[in-house]
């Protein structure tokens, strides 16, 4: 494969998250808590042509195998994502993401008057509902732009 064709290199060991909704790759990394400081090799392809999605993002994380519970949260912003576990350049496991029942400690509640925004020793918790996600504490529902509520901490 020539350099002109190869947008993102194959990895030897790690996880490839494919079929990510176009434009969401950086949010996927944010959800996974990967910002480069861990020293992991990370490759990102954005808005790559895709037969299934039209355009898609691809995220490759070297030397880290992501657990199902970690990747399920990705389904909230990239419901079509597939997770490939790679060992010695071979795909040894391939899974779709499933919607989790709840999302803990990832999102911040947009209701400023929610107890989770009051400097209490409590993690945010959102239940996944048909309309989006819902704060377990104050009931606030987030329907859109979920990624903008990802807690940077």
């Amino acid at each position: 494969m020539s350099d002109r064709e190869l947008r993102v290199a194959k990895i030897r060991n790690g996880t490839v998250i494919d079929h990510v909704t176009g434009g969401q790759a950086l949010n996927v990394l944010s959800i996974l808590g990967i910002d480069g400081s861990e020293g992991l090799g990370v490759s990102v392809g954005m808005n790559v042509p895709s037969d299934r999605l039209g355009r898609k993002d691809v995220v490759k994380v070297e030397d880290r195998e992501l657990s199902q519970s970690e990747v399920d949260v990705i389904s909230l912003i990239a419901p079509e994502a597939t997770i490939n576990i790679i060992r010695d350049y071979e795909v040894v496991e391939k899974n779709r993401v499933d919607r989790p029942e709840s999302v803990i400690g990832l999102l911040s509640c947009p209701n400023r008057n929610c107890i989770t925004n009051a400097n209490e020793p409590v993690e945010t918790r959102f239940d996944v509902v048909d309309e989006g996600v819902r704060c377990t504490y104050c009931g606030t529902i987030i329907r859109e732009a979920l990624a903008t509520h990802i807690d940077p901490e």
Partner: protein
Amino acid sequence: MRQDHLITATQLSRADIEAVLDRAAEIDADPGAVADRCQEAVLALCFFEPSTRTKMSFETAIKRLGGATTDMGTVESSSVKKGESLADTVRVVEGYADALVLRHPSEGAAKMAAEFVDVPVINAGDGAGQHPSQTLLDLYTIRDNVGLDDLSIGIMGDLKYGRTVHSLAEALTNFDVRQHFISPESLKLPRSVRFDLHNSGAQLREHTDLDEVLPELDVLYVTRIQRERFPDETEYEQIAGEYQIDADTVAAAGDDLAVMHPLPRVDEIDPAVDALPEATYFEQAHNGVPVRMALLDSLLAEGSL
């Protein structure tokens, strides 16, 4: 279902509600029979916001069951003023008491508190969230006056921030009740409450004008529209004025309307209504004692709701 805390109205089934109301009716008929049901029990009153009715009626309720209270006092006089978290406060207080009544300005405060303590927590108001013990006394009053099924209720005023409204609306979905919500556009029900009502299959309609629906109401539940919800005084006065009722309003309603209000009122119900047989808001406030006695009896003497 066994429940250790009272946090929201949505946790209550029809059977749960009826059990508390039936018990309250028994207590109301013969308060002396339960005078030692909670002997030696101590109820902690943790009010991070002002309260008259809720706090005093819980205090009276536990005393009439033979128990006592320990009171955090005002926020100004407590260690909250020194920056103590709610999680720490409730963990300290649970060592002093058998149950905890909590009012707090943040939504979700009671839910969080219940995760930190082993004693029962009763949500006595969490910001613009819920106030389920008020709902139980509201339901008791409605049942006493007009019954709880085949009913049309109008809930009017600040539906967006009114925690008594949110709890009552959600609890009413357990009964055959048509709910009419009457408010200015800017104070309509919040999305989270609509979500719960929709999921419960509630029969609801929304109005900006009380006259549209007044003749068909059995109950009119009036709430206060607060000045601070509006950017300027003129707008507040104009809008709040449209949601005030007087003797003419009551006369224009159908027979046997029950006018309710969680109180305190400011000027949303004209004092001339007080003397009319339709006015039930003082009776409603008084019902706080037997209903809260029934609630405390369940949580403390029986061990669960």
